[in-house]
């Protein structure tokens, strides 16, 4: 391989002779590489397993609670591990941005076309009915505060339960309205109850409001009233 002290270039002979070509190619380099069979020491395998164990420990120790919200790999003293629940009045006002076009920022709606939210019996009354309206939307004639409206409200069930509860809490505590907050668990319960239903008609809504909530939803309501105690009322 390396016995190459040859200093003088020489003309390369154009060789048609296959034996010569073969000879040159064979002498040019070593055989194609092969595998040796030196065994792997057992101690080395053990070291690899120890490394794996260490990796597993590290993964667990710095796992940041394995949640999507755990942004810190280790708990920090004095800081709660997950974000505190958002104030429903703040979130509600944000979500209400989607309602402004019809119900207006003042909550008074558009006279003769869109019903008001302020002093509305639907807003201040049965919370279960209110959630149901927001989830599924309502179409057709509806009497609000003594006036007849005939328009359509879309369904908002693509929104999170937290957002729906927040916006309802917001409208129940704004523009002079003073009613208790809507708990998230109620939204979850009504969503389950009304699953598969289409948009409401006035009559169907009355019928729904008259029936008692289904069995699984019942315990949700009392539990729910405890949670929103922190929600501020204007």
């Amino acid at each position, binding site marked *: 391989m390396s016995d190459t002290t040859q*200093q003088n270039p020489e003309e390369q002979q154009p060789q048609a002779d296959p034996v010569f070509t073969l000879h040159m190619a064979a002498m040019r380099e070593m055989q194609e590489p092969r595998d*040796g069979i030196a065994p792997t020491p057992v101690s080395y395998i053990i070291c690899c397993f120890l490394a794996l164990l260490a*990796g597993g420990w590290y993964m667990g120790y710095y796992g940041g609670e394995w949640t999507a919200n755990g942004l810190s790999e280790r708990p920090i003293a004095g800081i709660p591990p997950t974000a505190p629940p958002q104030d429903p009045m703040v979130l509600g006002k944000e979500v209400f941005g989607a309602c402004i076009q019809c119900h207006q920022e003042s909550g008074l709606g558009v006279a003769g076309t869109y019903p008001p939210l302020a002093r509305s019996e639907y807003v201040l009354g049965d919370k279960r009915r209110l959630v149901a309206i927001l989830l599924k939307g309502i179409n057709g004639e509806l009497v609000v505060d003594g006036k007849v409206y005939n328009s359509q409200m879309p369904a908002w069930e693509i929104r999170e339960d937290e957002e729906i509860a927040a916006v309802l809490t917001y409208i129940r505590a704004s523009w002079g309205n003073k009613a208790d907050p809507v708990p998230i668990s109620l939204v979850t319960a009504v969503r389950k109850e009304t699953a598969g239903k289409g948009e409401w008609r006035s009559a169907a809504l009355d019928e729904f409001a008259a029936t008692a909530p289904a069995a699984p939803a019942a315990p949700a309501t009392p539990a729910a009233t405890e949670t929103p105690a922190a929600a501020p009322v204007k």
Partner: protein
Amino acid sequence: MIAQPIPPVVIPEVEARIEVDGSSRPVIVLYWGTSLIWLTIASIAGLISSIKLHSPEFLGGMEWLTFGRIRAVHWDTAIYGFGGLAASGTLLWLQARLCQVRLPYRNLLLVGGVVFNIGLVLGTAGVLMGQSTGVETLEFPLWAMPLLVVPYVFIVIANFTMYFKKVTKHTYVSQWYLMAVTVWFPILVLSAEACTNLGAVDGVAQAIANWWYGHNVVGLFATPTGIAAAYYLIPKVIGKPIHSYHLSLLGFWSNAIFYNWAGTHHLTGGPLPAWTITLGVVGSLMMFIPVITIGINHHMTMLGSFHLLKTSPTLRFAVMGSMIYTLSSFQGSLEALRSHQEVTHFTHYTIGHVHFGMYGFFAPLMFAMMYYGMPRLMDQEWSSARLIRIHFWCTVVGMLIYVTAMCYAGIRQGLMMNDPSIPFLNIVRFTIPYLALRTLGGLILLTGTIAFLINFVRIITPHKYTWKTPTMLDTERDWKKLVELEKQSENGGTK
């Protein structure tokens, strides 16, 4: 010094070798040759962006060469232009040799090579015109990407065809890595493009996909090709079998299992769930297993043959590559640790590490492949031993200057940034001499590349005269002698 063993001759193997080398010449020379041109372009782009960091007014009036564009061009041409083409050439030639079959679809691969180059030119032009996507490592505008992906499909097809037609019974380690690259890389590119530029996901998931790709393009494309080259060249040149088949197995599979997870350590401190980053850190730490395993395998094979480094250019580059693979991977694994990143994250240290890996490990192994392959493909010897020596020492010295300057400056920079009492501008001023040192390192690397390019151009031009034996590093071969002889013979012929 131990007497050189006489190469054992296996006639069918030698015949296959003649077949393979003769038939694959145009394809491999196209891939390797253009890869060197792209290396030169990438080096120049890197130099421009490096100079801009310590002398911001340099070429300040040209919007095409603003830092944001020229740096993207530097990295993309380095990884796709040089890396992509050099690795593809290596992959095809090694696979053909190890399977002992002729390179299939040669015309298709030639067209693919040309198309890939056109894609690179268009992509680079797009980035320079300001159409960069802004996703690191995938900066090329989307319309240029098909020109890079389609030729790669040809390579994948050719690779599988060779493997299924192979004459040899045994599948050698290098082949495992080459097959793995052809499976991994298309999945990587397509899913990363889908998740970033095509917008299949958004928010932090996009950042995760970006860095998963950014890290894996080095780890699951460049690295396996480099390792395959080292596994081939070291035992081939010294004529000994590779140390241990069992270690080869362990190294390959642990590499395949762990590397994929490492990418998210780039996002330490970002607004990601902590466990995703921890996963990246653990993935990087576990890379100690394959790195040490592969290291033992390479270095134990080399043990007792170090005297050959004096003479063989191939071995010198290959051993440099495999040694720096061990070193830079150790550095990288430790760098992933959060405690380490507290200092070095977002500093020049990271840039030092990338160049240590790419220019200390991957590039030398590709150079070694070319030094080994070109004389066999072209039936001519390297014209000048001096140019090879210049290339080698420029690579070593330039890379060392670059990496030490960047790593040292990075650590100091990180420590200063952690101290809120130091004004930020003081830290910037502190780094300026090291940034200038980096330009010097880059300049030396470019000199080496140009020396190699000259040698490369000479070996692909047909000559009447060539050296009778391989060009070794300890010879004083001079190109001028060949030219003189050629002139003499021409004069003799006309007389």
